[in-house]
């Protein structure tokens, strides 16, 4: 009798744990309706092959580069490990984690996040961190990122953070319980719509232009890590007109890059050469490029890669060609679908865009 009770007890506990796991999966946000960026990080683990180039950074990478173009025109395989407002230490730990899965030839890092020396925002933290698989890198990244209101337990068991979603559940929460909706192209988030850039205000005068010491520390760590792993590190500044990139910041990065022997390209200075037209190539007034802008930038960047590095052209490789052909199909499908929505609704309804009203 006692034995029976014990068995029932153990079964009960196991069932309880299983149900907690399922409930957690159910209640975690799926990022399938409008804020797709939250699903970016997790998408990486769906990749089946390695990449020659890995981009790391914030929305200035995942909105401005098209890995499909890089493949089509140069046969270079790439992936963008980007996330919204990705902070520099988060980038470093993502870099560390990526290198535990593969060894790319080049890692490209967008330096905009040097301006943030402190944890910023819980929601952005979640979008970058929740998607990572558990690893030492993830744990370190969590501890460095937590704002005051956050606690590690809530990352360990996201159920404690997202339980309040019980009253906001939708059908998508069930559909995408175990795997997210496919929305990205090797980490690129596509937008075909256009919104011409008007006048973009210069930045406010700051009292301190010096980047935080902690940011430099992480930059050092990146350089060291890439050296140690024999990976070529490249710094870039994407050609986004806003947030404002100060000359004082530019000077610091240039001098750092020179000192460390890391190539650095500021694409804000090469807009003409790239052929970017900010009346056509941006979907939000100059903050991010749209598809045509991203393809232009990628073409230009690909050329620079080819000229500076010995990267194999894999277009003849059967296995890779097959995989990337499928990616290209999905890319074209989405492009078509987005153009269709633009025609039908005037804005990208299912792709997170705002309805365009005539009040501006």
């Amino acid at each position, binding site marked *: 009798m006692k034995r029976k009770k014990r068995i029932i007890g153990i079964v*009960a506990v196991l069932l309880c744990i299983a149900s907690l796991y399922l409930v957690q999966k159910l209640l975690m946000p799926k990022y399938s309706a409008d804020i797709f960026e939250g699903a970016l990080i997790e998408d990486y683990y769906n990749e089946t092959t390695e990449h020659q180039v890995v981009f790391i950074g914030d929305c200035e990478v995942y909105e401005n580069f098209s890995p499909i173009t890089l493949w089509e025109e140069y046969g270079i395989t790439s992936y963008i490990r980007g996330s919204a407002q990705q902070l520099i230490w988060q980038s470093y730990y993502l870099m560390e984690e990526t290198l535990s899965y593969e060894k790319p030839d080049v890692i490209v890092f967008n330096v905009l996040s040097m301006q943030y020396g402190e944890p910023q925002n819980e929601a952005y933290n979640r979008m970058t961190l929740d998607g990572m698989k558990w690893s030492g890198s993830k744990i370190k990244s969590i501890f460095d990122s937590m704002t005051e209101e956050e606690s590690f337990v809530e990352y360990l068991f996201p159920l404690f953070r997202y339980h*309040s979603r019980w009253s906001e559940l939708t059908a998508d929460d069930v559909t995408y319980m175990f795997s997210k909706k496919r929305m990205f192209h090797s980490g690129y988030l596509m937008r075909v719509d256009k919104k011409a850039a008007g006048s973009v205000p210069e930045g406010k005068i700051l009292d301190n232009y010096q980047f935080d010491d902690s940011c430099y520390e992480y930059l050092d760590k990146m350089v060291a890590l890439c050296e140690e792993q024999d990976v070529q590190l490249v710094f870039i500044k994407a050609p986004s007109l806003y947030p404002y990139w100060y000359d004082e910041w530019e000077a610091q990065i240039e001098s750092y890059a020179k000192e460390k022997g890391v190539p650095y390209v500021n694409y804000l200075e090469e807009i003409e050469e790239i052929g970017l037209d900010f009346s056509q190539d941006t979907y939000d007034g100059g903050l991010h490029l749209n598809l045509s802008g991203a393809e232009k930038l990628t073409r230009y960047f690909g050329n620079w890669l080819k000229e500076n590095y010995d990267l194999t052209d894999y277009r003849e490789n059967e296995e890779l060609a097959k995989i990337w052909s499928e990616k290209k199909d999905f890319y074209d499908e989405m492009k078509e679908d987005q153009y269709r929505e633009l025609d039908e609704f005037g804005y990208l309804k299912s792709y997170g865009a705002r309805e365009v009203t005539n009040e501006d």
Partner: protein
Amino acid sequence: MLFTSYNFILFLVIVFILYYCIPKKFRWILLLFASYFFYAQAGVELLLFLLSTTVSTYIVSLQLLRLSGTQKAYIAKNKTVLNKEAKKAYKSKIKKKQWKWLLACLFFNFGVLAIFKYTNFTIANINSLITAFGGTKQLNFLNLVLPMGISFYMFQTMGYLIDVYRGTVQAERNIGKLALFVSFFPQLVQGPISRYNDLSRTLFEKQAFNSSNVWFGLQRILWGYLKKMVIADRILPAVNTIINAPEDYQGAYVLAGMIFYAIELYADFTGGIDIVIGIGQIFGIEMTENFNRPYFSKNITEYWRRWHITMGTWFKDYLFYPISICKPMRKLSKWSRNHLGEAVGRKLPVYISTLVVWFVTGLWHGASWNFITWGVFNGVIILLSGECAPLYQWFHKRFRVENKIWYSAFQILRTFLLMSSLRLFDCYRDVKTAFSMFGTLFTKWNYEVFFNGSMLELGISTADYMVLLLGVLLLLLVSLRQRKGSVRQQMAEKPITVNLLAVYLLFMAIIILGAYGIGYDASQFIYNQF
């Protein structure tokens, strides 16, 4: 450490595991270390307060013991020599000495409490008086931090000392055990205020692992967390919205606030006590009940026998009785019987003692006129309802409604509304505001806010209201069931799968529906900084 923090849960689990792993005779010592560790989380320097109370009480209680011993020995030795008067005189001499020791310790400890809790209140009043007399000088407030739980452990310990003085409790010779009685971590923050004879029965016992205790205790803890996190914390934003902006929320909102606060306070306080007693139970320790379905009370006197029971009995035993039978009171009673008539004379000591006790009760709840007014009002109404007793008797003789269900329902509702109205003093920033808000119940006719969606703009959503409704219904159901006896006992008689399912649902309800985490304000037990 808040009960509703991850750290506390971890702490509890670790202490629980260690408790049943170490040899039985060391278990109470573990609890002592755990209690001091728990208290130190609020600030290591605060341990000084616990220590000063423990040490002073220990020293004095041993003095009292020593004097009793001396007395016994002397009388025994001189049995044949002493006559009745001599014996009496000697005893009274010893008693006087003991009284001096007791007074010194009470003075010291209550002094500490008074200084830390009431200094700024006193200063504020002095400042008001100065202004009232046209002066301009204002005293500065002191930056004093109120040691956590001081109102609870102080009263509990002084109760112990008075019991030793009275001879009803044998002084504890082991300072460690006394220290544990003073600092026992579950009850430190919000009671119950235990009596030494009751608590010590199980506190120091060599507890064997008893699965029934642990299972029942766990259920009680979960039940407490459900009340606290699913109900109390969920309704709190609405309460705060209403009482923090009395200019904007009047009339019907005040009624809503009263009812919401009644639910919130009940769920928070009784939930907290459930957690406390449940924790005691998993360690095999029995603690006194503090609530007995108080909202089913039919009048105010009954309410105070069912709400915060240990506070009521403490004041009754250690304040009310001593005052009503002390010499000055007896003199006053005699004088008034002679000058104001027999009836008045007999009642006067009771009335004065009652009002004093309620004044102090109010003061104990908080250092502000709000609480004092609340206390005194409670006292006045209790006395009034006592005075009205003949009126009620006549009424019930004339109209036979005494045990009719609808009349009982009326009595319960009446008492509920009365107590909720009194609690307005608890809510608003000052006495004036409380009175005027109560007034708006009758003068501001905006009861349409219950129907036009305004209730959804207080900080809680429709989904929240649904959960609250279900929660309150559940509370009601369980309370009704409880009249037949322990609900856990009744559950235990059902098949084990039903039990497991109930506990599982309780657990999941807390995790999913609990109003905790980012997006909900960090919640505190109302009695925490007490």
